[in-house]
């Protein structure tokens, strides 16, 4: 029955690296090396249990610990603090900042940036003793929600500085590095930047060419190379730079280039940058190429360990993704406000347009995806504040979901407002341009989807392997086998073996929870079938992987809104009845999409379509564009 074996090791190089490093950060499953080692030993280590909801749905199992109950990580004092902090931030955007001017001038003027520094907005999560506001992730989320609602360009300037620019120092810096640099990037008003991307290394970040070589006396490294599309690249004094460093493996004696993270100061010399890039949106944020020519970096400026740079980079990015979901839920809130203000005023055919079903569906969908995004953002920040380590898949999902939802919400807000929405003065066209980048940077949504699917599949695979090994030594693993046999037998005779949510959700949501449970069950079955069918080859089946990723996103989104709405119902919030409606409508549609996507990923006629897609694309690429001429044959 179970013929699954090693599927892990044949990923394309870049993806493999991406998944490998990410999974090492997670420390939730065996890395490829351990698997190989395990094969030689008769005694097997059990696959590690992840606390991640998303990870476990790949096994068809409900892991509710990080979803139910909805996290409420703020103490009374922390709540009071964030309420106090939100006021001055709000005032800054109302009284000082001018997003239209920022966009027109493609820069943030002196007075505005000075006010931002003064406000302390550049050091939200830096501990108070280093000059920051010392916010938790949840407090930070509440802060950036305000930023996202007002000016995404300012948001990028702030985010490039603290969410990625010096986040590495916060996460991996030693005490000396923290003491030296954190006061400079807060009270010292020096900009920071995160320098990873290169002309030939975008999504495939492991292939960077910038190199740092240790000096003979070991006192410093000499850095050479160039980076592109660096946010704050023209402003930054302090940069987290990723470069290849030749590292000798003590075991084999072989030397190999490995990515290493450094703290580089512009004042080290040899650091220059290109002119600010002209962009579609987020224009006021500075984006530039940065060049390093024989930059002497003191040896103590390594961030983390030599050769661990990829892990540093992925952790920084993983750690900051929830912030994007929080900021974009603010953006959606303000778009929806504009659209509803318009819809409730505008008369056409003698009626307010919000009385028409067409507009109602738009407003309902916009509100629902906003609800999902906001609920994801605060669930993830809450889990992180509660010490969770297993949040990376959820963070990736929240980034994809938030950026796509915000794009759609802004687009539909413009549609509701018609010609008025298209006008510059309405302010939505700028938001639309600003939003486009969110699906691209900090891990494109396409790569993150593959990351979600492959990491989940790898996890499910490691558990199947364990089961397979158990069959080789049945007497020692009787418990496991009996449990599994029961699960399968129940399924085989058609009994409902889907996970049970009923004790976790409010009674009003039982029906919706059953839909989510059904999705989890089908998902686990689909993944197992795919592993049996494709074995290790699954990693190359991107058409299919994307459907699994989509199903995982929808399933996680269902669980998140079930949890949030349950909390609101239990607390009897004034908005509880409204949230119930959104949760019910969301689960009904999302579970339908899950079933559809799982079906598409397995049904023969769809697989045929995928192979047609592949051929069409190959034809077009071979002819360098559209293959056929127009119908007039001109």
């Amino acid at each position, binding site marked *: 029955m179970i013929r699954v074996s090693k599927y892990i090791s044949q990923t394309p190089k870049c993806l493999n690296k991406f998944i490998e490093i990410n999974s090492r950060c997670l420390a939730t499953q065996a890395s490829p090396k351990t698997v190989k080692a395990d094969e030689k030993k008769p005694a097997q280590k059990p696959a590690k249990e992840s606390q991640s909801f998303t990870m476990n749905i790949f096994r068809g199992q409900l892991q509710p610990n990080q979803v139910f109950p909805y996290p409420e990580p703020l103490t009374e004092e922390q709540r009071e603090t964030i309420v*106090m902090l939100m*006021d*001055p931030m709000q005032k800054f955007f109302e009284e000082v900042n001018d997003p239209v001017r920022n966009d027109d001038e493609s820069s943030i003027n002196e007075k505005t940036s000075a006010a931002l520094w003064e406000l*302390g907005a550049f050091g939200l999560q830096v501990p108070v003793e280093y000059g920051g506001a010392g916010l938790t992730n949840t407090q930070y989320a509440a802060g950036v929600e305000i930023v996202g609602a007002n000016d995404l360009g300012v948001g990028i300037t702030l985010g490039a500085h603290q969410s990625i620019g010096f986040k590495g120092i916060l996460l991996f810096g030693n005490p000396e590095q923290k003491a030296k640099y954190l006061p400079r990037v807060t009270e010292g008003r020096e900009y920071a930047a995160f320098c990873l991307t290169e002309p030939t290394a975008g999504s495939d970040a492991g292939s960077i060419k910038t190199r740092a070589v240790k000096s003979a006396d070991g006192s410093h490294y000499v850095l050479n190379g160039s980076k592109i599309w660096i946010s704050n690249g023209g402003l930054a004094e302090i940069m987290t730079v990723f470069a290849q460093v030749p590292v000798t493996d003590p075991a084999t004696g072989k030397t190999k280039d490995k990515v290493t993270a450094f703290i580089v100061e512009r004042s080290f010399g040899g650091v220059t940058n290109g002119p600010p890039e002209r962009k579609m949106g987020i224009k006021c944020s500075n984006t530039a190429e940065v060049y390093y020519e024989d930059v002497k970096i003191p040896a103590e400026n390594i961030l983390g360990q030599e050769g661990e740079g990829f892990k540093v980079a992925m952790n920084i990015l993983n750690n900051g993704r929830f912030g994007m979901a929080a900021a974009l839920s603010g953006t959606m809130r303000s778009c929806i406000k504009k659209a509803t203000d318009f819809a409730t005023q505008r008369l056409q055919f003698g009626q307010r347009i919000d009385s028409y079903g067409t507009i109602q569906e738009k407003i309902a969908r916009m509100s629902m995806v906003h609800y999902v995004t906001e609920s994801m953002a605060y669930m993830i920040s809450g889990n992180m504040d509660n010490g969770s380590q297993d949040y990376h898949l959820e963070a990736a999902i929240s980034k994809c979901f938030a950026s796509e939802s915000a794009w759609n919400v802004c687009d539909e807000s413009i549609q509701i407002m018609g010609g008025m929405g298209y006008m510059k003065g309405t302010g939505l066209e700028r938001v639309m341009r600003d939003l486009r980048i969110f699906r691209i940077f900090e891990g494109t949504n396409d790569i993150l989807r593959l990351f979600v699917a492959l990491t989940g599949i790898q996890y499910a695979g490691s558990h199947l392997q364990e089961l397979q090994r158990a069959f080789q030594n049945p007497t020692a693993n009787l418990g496991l086998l009996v449990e599994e046999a029961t699960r399968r037998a129940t399924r085989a005779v058609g009994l409902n073996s889907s996970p049970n949510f009923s004790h976790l959700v409010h009674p009003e949501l039982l029906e919706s929870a059953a839909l989510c449970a059904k999705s989890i069950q089908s998902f686990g079955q689909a993944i197992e079938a795919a592993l049996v069918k494709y074995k290790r080859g699954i990693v190359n089946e991107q058409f299919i992987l994307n459907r699994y990723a989509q199903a995982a996103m929808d399933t996680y989104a269902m669980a998140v809104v079930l949890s949030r709405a349950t909390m609101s119902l239990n607390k009897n919030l004034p908005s509880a009845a409204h949230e119930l409606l959104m949760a019910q409508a969301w689960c009904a549609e999302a579970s339908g999409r899950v079933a559809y996507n799982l079906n598409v990923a397995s049904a023969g006629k769809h697989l045929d379509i995928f192979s047609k897609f592949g051929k069409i694309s190959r034809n077009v690429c071979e002819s360098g564009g559209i293959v056929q001429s127009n119908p007039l044959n001109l």
Partner: protein
Amino acid sequence: MARVLVGVKRVIDYAVKIRVKPDKSGVVTDGVKHAMNPFDEIAIEEAVRMKEKKLASEIIAVSCGPPQAQETIRTALAMGADRGIHVEVAGAEYDTLQPIHVSKILAKLAQDEKADIVIVGKQAIDDDANQTAQMTAAVLDWPAGTFCSKVEHGSGELTITREVDGGLEVIKVKTPAVLSADLRLNEPRYATLPNIMKAKKKPIKKVSPKDLGVDTAPRIDIISVEDPPVRQAGSILPDVDALVAKLKEGGHI
């Protein structure tokens, strides 16, 4: 250098749409955003500027109200006040607390704390009473400089520009004195995030009116709180003649 006592009141935020309770006993305050009275922000700002110019040695922020009044004191501390005094008055006692009570409290604290200058906002945006500065000065028997739009410091005296009907009045008062801040006195800074965090370490002393020997027995009875009358819908008239006729009809011309 002067020690400055500043009164800061917690009020419903100016941007909130006020709703009257269905039983007409007052306005809805539960779950409603509150903030420091904007005129009190100006008062605090003036005190902080005095301290920055080395004209003041210490700023004490005082608020009378329920436990949440401490949030308002924290804001004052984040703006630059050195310490706070929270005079706890809650529940029904707070509902009927009037400027006369607050004036007596502020006067007692001004004496206890050996303040040289008391500054309050000219009025609070919730009850619009505009009485506290005047009565505090009366209780203390100090000179009062109300509706200040400019305060200049001399030795033992202050030159104050006051906003009066139809213009400005310049007066001199000897310290100690009580001042009330008008809109144009200054533009208050907003508390920065690091200062808000630092303000957490500044002390807030909690006292009750009884500790200060002030009787807060109500002097008023709230009979009914009601919404202002709803504005009647306008109408569009076809021409000037119709407008003139209407105006005549209404007795406006």
